């Protein structure tokens, strides 16, 4: 994207290939590889609590990226993302129960969710704006109801037990090991999205968002790409949900409500609409926010503030309120999200101390 200004002086490109790379300098690439390597070592020195947070960030981050491709990149709204996430979870459990090895079941669950997403996307991609929001709301309610009723598929209101993740007979369950599973998925899924956005179909998605009339004149089939965005988004949601199911070991319809869909929206708004890395930043923020409030509440335990506000009882309500407040604050003060803030910090350091 428009990161050209952030190149160090004297760094000139001598081939088009060098100019199309994801990482503008060798240092950024080194940082990323170093970061992933550091994460790969994380289970050695992080406690299970922090690992579980990282795993949460991983599978939610994949689903959030899916929603960002739909909302941020192709410019369509969806307030039913949670049910596609849920569908992926149920589908993977269903497949695993019928003898499909879990790693394959997760990928197949992603594809199955894609099919369902396309089913809802085909009519939805023909309407825009508020009407589309209502159409996706319909998907939310229809699928949520389906989860409760289709006992053969979801176990109904009781939910379904998810078999553990095994690869080549090696059990990968437990925070320490499952962490690697999620890490691999996150790296692959984020790499796919980054590549997609610098090639033909990704550009077409953004073109449809920015100016659909001229996109059409450039030969972009609007309906095809709008529907495709729903498909890709559902695939990511499905993979995220499947990873969740096998992590928790249990999948139930509970929690797959509209509030969860809104939380996904919050993640990408906070992270930055139309930014691949922003999806991850937003997820990190949204996962850590309740943890931080919890930590804050326990830090204040017994103090005057605690007594005055009944923090201990009110913490769940406070979280909801805080999420709402944060979304509003971001919309007003940082509509381009954390990804934009990150770019600005980088620009600041590049020009430091002559930041004007």
């Amino acid at each position: 994207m428009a990161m050209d200004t952030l190149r160090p002086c004297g760094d000139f490109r001598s081939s088009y290939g060098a100019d199309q790379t994801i990482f503008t300098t060798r240092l950024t690439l080194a940082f990323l590889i170093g970061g992933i390597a550091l994460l790969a070592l994380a289970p050695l020195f992080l406690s299970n609590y922090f690992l579980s947070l990282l795993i949460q960030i991983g599978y939610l981050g994949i689903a959030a990226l899916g929603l960002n491709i739909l909302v941020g990149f192709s410019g369509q709204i969806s307030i039913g993302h949670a049910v596609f996430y849920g569908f992926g979870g149920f589908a993977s459990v269903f497949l695993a129960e019928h003898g499909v090895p879990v790693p394959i079941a997760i990928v197949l669950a992603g594809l199955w969710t894609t099919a369902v997403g396309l089913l809802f996307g085909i009519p939805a991609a023909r309407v825009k704006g508020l009407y589309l929001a209502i159409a996706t709301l319909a998907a939310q309610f229809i699928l949520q109801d389906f989860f409760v009723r289709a006992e053969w598929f979801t176990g109904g209101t009781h939910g379904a037990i998810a078999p553990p993740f095994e690869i080549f007979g090696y059990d990968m369950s437990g925070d320490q090991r499952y962490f690697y599973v999620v890490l691999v998925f996150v790296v692959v899924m984020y790499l796919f999205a980054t590549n997609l956005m610098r090639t033909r179909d990704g550009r077409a998605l953004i073109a449809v968002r920015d100016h659909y009339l001229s996109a059409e004149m450039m030969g972009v089939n609007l309906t095809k790409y709008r529907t495709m965005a729903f498909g890709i988004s559902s695939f990511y949601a499905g993979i995220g949900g499947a990873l969740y199911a096998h992590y928790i070991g249990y999948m139930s319809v509970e929690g797959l409500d509209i509030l969860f869909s809104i939380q996904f929206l919050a993640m990408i708004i906070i992270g930055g609409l139309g930014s691949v890395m922003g999806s991850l930043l937003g997820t990190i923020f949204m996962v850590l926010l309740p943890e931080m409030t919890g930590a804050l509440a326990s830090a204040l335990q017994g103090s005057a503030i605690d007594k005055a506000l009944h923090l201990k009882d009110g913490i769940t309500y406070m979280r909801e309120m805080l999420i709402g407040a944060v979304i509003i604050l971001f919309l007003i003060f940082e509509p381009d999200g954390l990804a934009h803030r990150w770019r600005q910090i980088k620009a600041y350091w590049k020009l430091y101390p002559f930041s004007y």
Partner: protein
Amino acid sequence: MTTALLDVRAISLRFGGLRALSEVGFSVNSGELFSIIGPNGAGKTSLLNCISGRYSPQDGEIRFEGRDITRQKPSKRAAIGIGRTFQNLALFSHMSVLDNIMVGRHHLLKNNLFTGALYWIGGAQKEELQHRRKVEDVIDFLDIQHVRKATAGTLSYGLRKRVELARAVALEPKLILLDEPMAGMNLEEKEDMARYIVDLNEEWGMTIIMIEHDMGVVMDISHRVMVLDFGRKIAEGLPEEILANPHVRKAYLGEEDPLLEEPEALSA
């Protein structure tokens, strides 16, 4: 040079009771630079929209290279060789200039969702780079090298117009439709733009249909000119013929013209 590339046969376009175009017919030969002029609201852009597929006329037909394209979907028309620019800026404002122009090559690229996501495997990278080379030719031609990585929405008006032209050229169209390419430009920018248009026509061999209000430019560079008024064609011919045409003078000066009376009114 005598084959008709585009043949518009008596098309009529109505929006409810409003007649935007009434039985307009003309043909443009391969290699021609054809201008359409007329007062505001004469139906020039509607006509262009019919050719590019945004509107479909109720009557008449449009033939491109002998094929009927009247009902063809707009997104299919890039592949048969019709490109256009818009009157109001229509860039993808959050994308870089380079990406904007690359979208112009959408119909020429073959990589898809899957090969795109895999990038290094499956040839997407190689293909993207080959097309990047072609795009760079267009960037060189229009002299926008210095902004190729800039976000399109941040550019000045004149530059955006040029990027939009670049995007349409990158499509490698046989016929390019320019809707007021010089609107809102100063003299110098107009001269540059006129030069690009003539070069596209003469060196790149593109057939051009242009809507423009600047009579000086139109009369200087066009091979033939058509005049519309109230959705009707009132004249067509060489620039000098148009300048001498009394109907045209009346249309612009606002005098009574029997040619523009409603036929119903005449018969009544």
